[in-house]
């Protein structure tokens, strides 16, 4: 964290010399240079707590209370109406016997890995291409990013046509026209392909998003470093491997986090394109917990599945943050 603006200005109007107390305290950044603190001390320069009350109230109603209630319901047999009783870990035991739920865990993980790897790989290649001094780079940047601002449901419907099983239309039509008719598939109808077809359309939509984050990272790589490396005799690959790549670490961290969390929570595209089918071939945690609640009325069980999803997301975020931050360097 860059603390320059803070230390340069924050302490100025106060009597206490800045920095005298900044080494103490709970490590909260910002604010620096206060002599002492207590939870309810009123400093005339600090805005009154009423400033945070409206935000806190809405946050508590919409996020905090429902999340806590969700954790509680995960241990009940609630059906959405009427009373319920606590059933301990029964819902989780059911989950371990529920073939569809287990399959959805596997599908969610496979889908996430595929999306994370391919989307970021393509995003990086696009970013490197668009970062070079080619004439069409501004246009290309807009083209590749545009799908990211469109509703995922609409993208799913568009791709449903692209994946049309009929021979002459969509992707199959293109394959036929290119003389590759043998590769024609029932992309969404074939249980062994459906999940990967969904992954491909997610990647199509968000590769440009990864690209712009990598691009911002590339723009932060000083040209002098490349020049110095060139003078030292480094080739293009070596310059990428030893100069660009380490400096892209922050962009990579953000991209991996965003695409992993997005992949784990994926719902709209699956729901609109396959609704988890054929059979359970493309069922994900999000589609299962949706159906358990709103189709089968098993609200308690559904929140148990949601809790599993929440634990996955939390675990992945923490692990990624820890390992990826460790390899970040600055120019």
């Amino acid at each position, binding site marked *: 964290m860059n603390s320059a*603006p*803070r230390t340069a*200005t924050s302490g*100025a*109007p106060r009597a206490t010399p800045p920095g005298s107390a900044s080494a103490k305290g709970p490590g*909260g950044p*910002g*604010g620096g240079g206060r002599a002492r*603190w207590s939870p309810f*001390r009123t400093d005339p*320069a600090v*805005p009154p707590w009423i*400033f*945070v009350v*409206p*935000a806190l109230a*809405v*946050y508590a109603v*919409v*996020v905090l209370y*429902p999340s806590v209630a*969700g954790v509680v*319901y995960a241990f009940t047999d609630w059906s959405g109406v009427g009373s319920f009783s606590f059933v301990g870990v029964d819902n989780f035991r059911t989950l371990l016997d529920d073939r569809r739920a287990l399959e959805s865990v596997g599908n969610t993980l496979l889908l996430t890995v595929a999306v994370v790897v391919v989307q970021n790989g393509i995003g990086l290649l696009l970013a490197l*291409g668009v970062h*070079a*001094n*080619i004439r*069409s780079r501004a246009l*290309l940047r807009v083209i590749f*990013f545009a799908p990211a*601002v469109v*509703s995922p*449901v*609409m993208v799913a*419907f*568009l*791709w449903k*046509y692209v994946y049309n099983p009929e021979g002459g239309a969509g992707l199959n*039509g293109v394959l036929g*026209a290119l003389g590759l008719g043998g590769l024609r598939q029932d992309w969404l109808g074939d249980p062994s392909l459906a999940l990967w077809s969904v992954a491909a359309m997610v990647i*199509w939509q968000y590769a440009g*998003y990864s690209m712009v984050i990598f691009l*911002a990272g*590339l*723009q*932060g790589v000083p*040209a002098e470093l490349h020049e110095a490396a060139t003078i030292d005799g480094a080739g293009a690959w070596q310059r990428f491997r030893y100069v660009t790549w380490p400096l892209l670490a*922050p962009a990579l961290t953000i991209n991996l*986090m*965003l695409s992993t969390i997005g992949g784990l*929570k994926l719902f*709209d595209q699956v729901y609109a394109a396959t609704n988890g089918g054929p059979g359970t071939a493309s069922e994900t945690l*999000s589609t299962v917990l*949706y159906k358990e609640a*709103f189709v089968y009325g098993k609200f308690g069980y559904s929140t148990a599945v*949601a809790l599993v*999803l929440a634990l996955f*997301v*939390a675990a992945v975020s923490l692990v990624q*943050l820890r390992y990826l931050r460790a390899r970040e360097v600055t120019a």
Partner: protein
Amino acid sequence: MSAATPVRPGASEPSARGAGRRRRLPRSGRYLLELVMAAAAVAFLFPVYALVSMAMKDPRQIAESPLAPPAPPTLANFGDAWSSASLGPALVNSTVITVASLLLLIVLGSTGAYYLARRARGLGYGLYVLFLLGIVLPFQLGMIPLYKLVDSLGWLGTYQGMVLFYTGIQLPFTVFLYTGFIRALPQDYAQAALIDGCDHRQAFTRVVFPLLRPITGTVIILNAVFIWNDFFTPLLYLGGSDKETVPVGIFSFVGQYVSDYGLVFAGLVLAALPVLLVFLLLQRYVIKGFAGGLKG
């Protein structure tokens, strides 16, 4: 620099001052790259070509030559799609919900963050961490209790139910962006205003808030794209009502006319057009917002 480091004031200015100058490729390499990228763009755009060309074909053309460009192109599908997908009302609903949610997010997010940024110890720090928790929690965890709560308020199928949802669910991220920005902002201006006799509310509205313009832009862009395109919750809250947003309206429209590709695709084009137009007009800011929203 990391995902947990918010944007600083300078980060919204045009980047790459001096740093990151584009390296020159030899001419032959440049043409080759230009060609490769153009080919990638063409492949990438194929679904868009299919979308637009299908929207301009009648059923006979679609059956006979699904891949060829429309000859002659027809615009009849667009009029039909506009009325059968009820796109007019859906656009109004999406606009009302998005704008109202954005206003609340800006007001609540900036004032809350102002307190959290200036009161960075003790209670303020604890509350900040509490807000950050909301970024990691998947909303599915609280989805059902919240649905029941909105239902008991009688707010299913209403604007206020959706606006409450979006304000709450996007507040953690909004507070995070604002807090990071405010922390890096000099305190002198607000303090000068206080010394000159302003109260805290005046100091905030007249002095601090105008300084937040760059991050407010980022807050608007990232939240607007999310809210406008969101599908899951509006499907639960608004499905079947007359307040359906564009994605929900399109979902039921496609379900109804699934076999009529020309009509469905014309509907998709019309539904995507407003967002794409705004994106093209503001592309520099939108891309910057997405690229820098979580960047340190």
